[in-house]
């Protein structure tokens, strides 16, 4: 089995974003997708802090402290981009105007429940940001994560044990070993990395998966 690294995951996910899509990339892992967008497509990135048409990082020395993304990193604005206030920014999300958001996750349940904001550990300082708004507001919520946690457990679960971000909101999960489509309360596998069998994947997740790959018998 050849696991994908994070860059490859980002590249793979980016291929599934159609031309003309309005996309919000969550902080952390999803940010990598910005650099992998197919150059022949026009994809418009929204940043929760009031940018539409966000461009790549500026050249060294050209950073502007007033031009940052949700992760507070310096960015640029493409021609055709614009600025707006926070209420309008979240109206974009909550009002269903963003086609796709990509979020990281601690856990995703087969029914689409998402946990990505708080480990629930008693000494952790919780922080939620815009995750809950994106999870329920975007037309589609994609998750990008390694399938297995550091302790070897699957992050795709029957039921989340971490505090929830949103209910039944995730439609796809892009992992380092497989891509899952969540629908009707169940997880379908639509792609596997080379060298991994469907049965091996099932044993990794301990979940009843559906083989939904092209050509697979349903």
């Amino acid at each position, binding site marked *: 089995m050849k696991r994908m690294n994070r860059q490859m995951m980002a590249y793979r996910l980016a291929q599934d974003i159609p031309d003309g899509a309005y996309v919000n990339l969550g902080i952390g892992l999803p940010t990598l997708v910005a650099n992998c967008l197919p150059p022949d497509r026009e994809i418009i990135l929204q940043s929760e802090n009031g940018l539409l048409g966000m461009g790549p990082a500026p050249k060294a020395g050209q950073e502007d402290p007033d031009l940052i993304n949700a992760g507070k990193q310096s960015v640029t604005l493409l021609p055709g981009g614009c600025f707006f206030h926070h209420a309008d920014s979240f*109206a974009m999300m909550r*009002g269903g105007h963003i086609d796709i958001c990509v979020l990281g996750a601690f856990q995703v349940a087969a029914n689409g429940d998402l946990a990505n904001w708080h480990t629930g550990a008693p000494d952790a300082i919780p922080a939620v940001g815009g995750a809950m708004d994106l999870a329920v*507001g975007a037309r589609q919520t994609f998750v990008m994560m390694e399938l297995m946690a550091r302790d070897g457990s699957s992050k795709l679960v029957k039921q989340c044990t971490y505090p929830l971000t949103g209910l039944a909101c995730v439609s796809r999960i892009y992992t380092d070993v497989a891509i899952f489509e969540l629908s009707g309360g169940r997880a379908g596998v639509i792609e596997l990395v080379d060298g991994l069998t469907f049965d091996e994947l099932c044993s990794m997740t301990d979940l009843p998966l559906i083989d939904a790959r092209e050509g697979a018998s349903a």
Partner: protein
Amino acid sequence: MINKIMASAAEAVSDIGDGSTIMIGGFGAAGMPDQLIDALIDQGAKDLTVINNNAGNGDRGLAALIREGRVRKIICSFPRQSDSQHFDARYRAGQIELELAPQGNLAARIQAAGAGLGAIFTPTGYGTDLARGNEVREIDGVMHVLEYPLHADFALIQAFKGDRWGNLVYRKAARNFGPIMAMAARCAIAEVSETVELGDLDPEVVVTPGVFVQRLVCVPSALEAAA
């Protein structure tokens, strides 16, 4: 490539079906998308529910749509005016249904739809005939009524300039309902006096970000009319 600019008003409104709910921008004649409405009249869609502040002025725009008998119901705040004769006639003949809303609740409900809110408690209208039947609640010592968002299938609005991503700027008080209607409709269509190259609109002054606009059409004559 994203290009929301359509070749003609006719093309822009071609898929508006009978029975659609349509927001139409404008406060009186200012901001009224006359050319999109003319195209809609030509297109023939009927049985429409229209959301506008008024019920048409004079013989153009919304007034013409009403005159042609295409509007089954209108949701507005101020139908009766000195020059609302086409609405008046159809209303008195029982040929058009009227849902009257206080103007601020109308605006707030449109905004709520665009922002994905489920409902709002507003103090406006409490204790009046226009909130009869609404759920009421006292909040911080003030009585409020519950109002639900107003969504639409299409919004027809007028703006000043736009680009192929759908970014819009408006002209003076013609702005009125345009920005919030664009957000509240499944498909927002703008007629603009001028289309400009991407990047020509200063990102600080864009009033309606392109994400809220699905189609725009350039109608240069509106510019001349305003000049």
